[in-house]
């Protein structure tokens, strides 16, 4: 189903939460609303799923204005999984079968078995849904939605606050759906790396407006505004050439080489972008003996207090930004000009191709 919006706005109690949203959801692709909390992502998804009415603007489903379509039949072509999904007070089986039952679809048992396999909860059919953990609830909710094979699925922060295992299972599932490219999915997240990983197209939202759209990696390289850059948390973004030495992969940044996770079949001299979260870098005043593959010596050139944390920039030939607590800073006696060692694992380096 094609979904198109024209200048949608939403006002809650005089507060404008969405402004002038015009977009066209691509069919059989995964689109993503990216932005910090409270930016209107949830409201936008709810409006697209008809759970909320826009204050202004029009929505077209397959070219027809939504008021002109029978509400129930339209609703049955799409589904939304909320940020904190809830379970009906019954078994897992009956939760997952809900959408099938209301549509009087056949072959329920097999479909439910498949859906539970998909979220790695096989054999949980008879469990009471109220006894599930948070991660399991999210996965059952996903199975409950996807088992209907809706034309469009809206997933609001699908891995919000989840345990690492559930997060991985859900990301893998969405990745598989992304590769299959047979379902239209719209998801929201505040995590840029997740947006980049899981979706074909990203809409970056700020204060209820779409301020940039395209491929996530383009945002990295060409943030359209200082907000993009700041929200994206672009601190350590490097461009370099891929090289391999003795079977180990490096990114050659010119002044230094950083070791990166092993890559298969890389072409020599391929250009790549790499980013590194500031909190992944360890600061020490002496060289560290550790399993982390990257360690560089540098000089503190900038220190800034931010919400109880200290953001420190150290020049190791190229600048790295590191976040540490105020106590660590005091313990290390850090001050401008001081010599420090930065250490991080190869696996902390996030790679994006420049294509």
């Amino acid at each position, binding site marked *: 189903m094609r979904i198109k919006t024209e200048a949608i706005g939403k006002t809650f109690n005089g507060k404008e939460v969405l402004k002038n949203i015009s977009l066209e959801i691509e069919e059989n692709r995964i689109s993503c609303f990216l932005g910090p909390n409270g930016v209107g992502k949830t409201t936008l998804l709810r409006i697209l799923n008809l*759970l909320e009415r826009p204050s202004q603007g029009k929505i077209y489903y397959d070219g027809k204005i939504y008021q002109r379509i029978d509400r129930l039949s339209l*609703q049955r072509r799409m*589904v*939304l999984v*909320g940020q904190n999904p*809830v379970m*009906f007070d019954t078994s897992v089986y009956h939760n997952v079968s809900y959408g099938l039952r*209301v*549509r009087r679809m056949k072959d329920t048992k097999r479909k439910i078995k498949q859906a539970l396999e998909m979220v790695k909860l096989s054999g949980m059919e008879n469990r009471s849904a109220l006894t599930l953990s948070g991660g399991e609830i999210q996965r059952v909710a996903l199975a*409950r939605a996807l088992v209907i094979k809706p034309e469009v699925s809206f997933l609001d922060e699908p891995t919000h606050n989840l345990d690492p295992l559930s997060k991985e299972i859900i990301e893998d599932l969405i990745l598989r759906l992304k590769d299959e490219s047979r379902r239209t999915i719209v998801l929201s997240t505040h995590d840029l790396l997740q947006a980049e990983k899981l979706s074909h197209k990203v809409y970056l939202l700020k204060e209820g407006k779409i301020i940039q759209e395209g491929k996530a990696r383009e945002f990295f390289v060409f943030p359209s505004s200082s907000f993009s850059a700041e929200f994206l948390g672009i601190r350590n973004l490097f461009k370099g050439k891929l090289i391999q030495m003795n079977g180990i992969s490096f990114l050659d940044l010119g002044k230094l080489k950083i070791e990166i996770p092993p890559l298969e079949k890389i072409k020599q001299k391929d250009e790549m972008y790499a980013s590194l979260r500031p909190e992944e870098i360890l600061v020490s005043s002496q060289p560290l003996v550790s399993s982390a593959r990257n360690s560089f010596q540098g000089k503190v050139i900038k220190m800034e207090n931010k919400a109880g944390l200290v953001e420190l920039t150290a020049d190791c030939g190229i600048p790295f930004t590191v976040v540490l607590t105020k106590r660590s800073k005091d313990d290390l006696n850090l001050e401008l000009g001081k010599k420090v060692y930065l250490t991080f694992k190869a696996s902390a380096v996030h790679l994006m191709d420049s294509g």
Partner: protein
Amino acid sequence: MYKMIEIVSSLDGEVLGIVFLSFRVSLTAIALSCLLSLPLSLLLALKNFPGRRVIISIINSLLAVPAVAIGLVVYLFLTRRSPLGALGLLYSPWAMIIAQGLLAIPIITSLALAAFRSVSRQIRETAITLGASLHQFILTIFRESRYSLAAALIMGFARVIGETGMTMMVGGNIKGSTRVMTTAIALETMKGNFELAITLGIILLAVSLLIGVPLQLLQGAGKR
């Protein structure tokens, strides 16, 4: 004492008839009041319309109306000289059903309202987004609130089956026709016929216990 055991063990026709009538009247009253109470409380729980709060506060104040007052109103409406007098309902089981039904309406409405309201917005929206039609949606609300809803019905039933004064006013306590457990106990006690009174009292007590235990369990289950 011996006679009492004899009455209980043999459960003679008169006692059985009284017990049966009590249940018939009170169950019918509850069923009829549900016809009004459940749609009303569903509407009040799910729809926001002007006057909603007023209706809720009226229902809550009706909870405090004494049963005798309801008995009086029903009596005045059903007495021969009244508009409905021609129906000849006064001193019939139907008069008791009407009075008990009216007594139960505010109780069931207010408890069912609380039950329906306990179904969270997220649950309601989950049903909608998964494609429930209106009647499937309502069924889901019922299913999600089933424990508190059952508790509401049991509370209503317990209240009306134990009601005496009002039932006597409109039913007349006519032997074999409108004599129910409570009115029979009142009468037999006054007559000094304690054996029958105590027998019926024990049955009534047993009914309360049989109602009370599942009620407690349901309320516990609802709070889980």
